[in-house]
């Protein structure tokens, strides 16, 4: 087979895959929110509501330092919501869409990509709304919006990698999905959303920096507050996590697909 033919084939496949993912997004929206339009609004309201609630709780509890507690926690929660949303739904993705796999053009990763795109886009929308609302109220924009966006994308990609692995694992081992669900809550205090690495004693800092989400939240804070805080993060480390989880996740899904076929 010559190379140009191969490339053409792949491009044709890519176009089809794009259409499949687009269709899956629409289908997913319908199944999750019903057909009336207020249903879609929940997609935005849920993270917005939770984010502002967390923000207000901390606004009442904490004192403003170099940053207001509201913007510190509310924005971080929206980013955390991507993580939560993607990983919590990972274990149900295969069982609830198993019928679709009869169509040859729909593959397992498509289902995940579609869901993750919905989750990420809605949270990016909420993030933009929240940041503009904060700009309207306080008058300060994030110091470096690129870093905020990068943190959001990094979080989505990391979550996707973990979700792919988790989905394959839940399919392989019965009953593990409850554990996955519990994990997203257990990781909440250590994921970096509620603290800055700089606040920790140094021996704990080195431990905290093993957690990839901590780096992402540090990046988010760096983009949000810039030089007002001292942040510690290593994007290479996060990239490594994203790559390894994707490799394992995608490979595991291929194995899972063969097993589904055997059933």
């Amino acid at each position, binding site marked *: 087979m010559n190379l140009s033919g191969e490339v053409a084939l792949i491009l044709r*496949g890519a176009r*089809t*895959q794009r259409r499949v993912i687009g269709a899956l997004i629409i289908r997913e929206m319908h199944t999750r929110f019903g057909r009336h339009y207020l249903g879609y609004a929940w997609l935005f309201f849920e993270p917005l509501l939770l984010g502002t609630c967390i923000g207000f709780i901390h606004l009442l509890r904490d004192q403003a330092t170099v940053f207001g507690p509201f913007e510190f926690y509310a924005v971080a929660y929206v980013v955390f919501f991507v993580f939560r949303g993607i990983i919590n739904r990972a274990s149900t993705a295969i069982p609830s869409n198993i019928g679709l796999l009869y169509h*040859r053009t729909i593959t397992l*990763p498509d289902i995940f990509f579609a869901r993750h795109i919905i989750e990420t886009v809605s949270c990016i929308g909420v993030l933009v709304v929240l940041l503009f609302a904060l700009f309207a109220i306080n008058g300060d924009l994030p110091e470096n919006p690129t870093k905020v966006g990068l943190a959001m994308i990094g979080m989505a990609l990391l979550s996707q990698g973990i979700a792919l692995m988790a989905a394959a694992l839940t399919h392989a081992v019965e009953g593990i999905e409850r554990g996955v669900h519990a994990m997203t809550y257990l990781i909440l205090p250590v994921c970096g959303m509620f*603290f800055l690495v700089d606040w920790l004693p*140094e021996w704990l800092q080195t431990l905290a920096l093993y957690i990839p989400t901590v780096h992402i939240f540090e990046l988010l804070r760096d983009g949000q507050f810039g030089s007002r805080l001292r942040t510690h993060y290593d994007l290479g480390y996060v990239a490594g996590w994203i*790559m390894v989880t994707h*490799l394992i996740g995608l490979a595991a899904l291929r194995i899972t697909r063969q097993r589904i076929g055997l059933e």
Partner: protein
Amino acid sequence: MSQIGTPPELSPQPRSWLFRFWRKPFFLLVIVPSLIAAFYFYAIAAPQYVSEARFVVHSRGNEGGQAAAMRAAAGAALGGLGGLGGGMASSETNSIRDYLSSLDAVMQADQKLGLVALWQRPEADFLARLWFTEPERLARFYNRMVDVALDPMTNVTTLRVRSFRPEDSKELAETLLRAAETLVNSLSERIRNDTLKVALREIEIAEKRVLDSRAALLRFREQERELDSAGTAQAAVVLRGQLEGALAQARAELTERLQFMRPDNPALQGTRNRIEALERQIAAERSRHTDTSATLGGAILVRQLADYERLMLEREFADKQLASATIGLETARTESQRQQLYLSRIVQPNLAVYALYPRSFTNVASIFLGLAIAYGIGWLLIVGMREHAA
């Protein structure tokens, strides 16, 4: 003709596995870049020599209340995870670390040593050498080549400097250490001066008060021509007592003589005269010292006494204040000695013999691993795409 003339594809003759392998995308995308990286690291890259120094910033005295407050805040933020502290470096050590990676340190080192020339030595290879000499970009390069790490458990700060010549590394490490020492000394000086300054000012005030009170007393004595008003008053009281005694005695004598003498007996006249003289004398004494209704010159002693006692009291207070200020200065001095900061070197900057950097094997291995993983992901994604087309 051309269809027939394509023997390489059709030929059943098996190529060597190496030939087949090099046409694989894995070879092109992973092995070749890794080999290029390996070639660079093993053949081209200039050796970089590390000079390492370690030091401790000792701060005797209060161990930074600020750090404790920060720790408490962190504990509160973590929601009951308080008491995690322990082994938190003092704020001084942190500030030295921050200083050593700051633009200020870069500029100082550049002034003393010429960092640009140091990192643009002819033996430096094109990838690792310094390209941009603007201060901010120089600082970025500097932070890549100079690593300041603080071990929080032992408080030891490790300074590692890399450059293309062992002597350069050592010299730069030495320069940075000296800059850090200067900073520590100036911080220490500042703390000491702040503590002492207050105590010294206190002493100055007390000394001035003592001198003032002495001067006032002297002026009083000159003005009033009197050495000791209290003594004078005492003398006046004694004198009056004596006069009163003499008067009483004279009166008793008169009464006694009247028992057996006629009142107009001239022998009594002497006694009467004495009584009269004594009474006049007593009245004069009294008006001289205490009668406030008398003329301006009157009641001098009362006023003098009041002034004198006020001055004496002032002098006493001034003396006491000076004594307490002196004690304060002593404590401040010992306190400031306790609060001294100093940087002590544990490991002197060494002269490297073997080039530890670049870490060829680690770098090549991580490049290979990263590319292999990226290739794996790419392969999985592309295969996924192809499935859609099939």
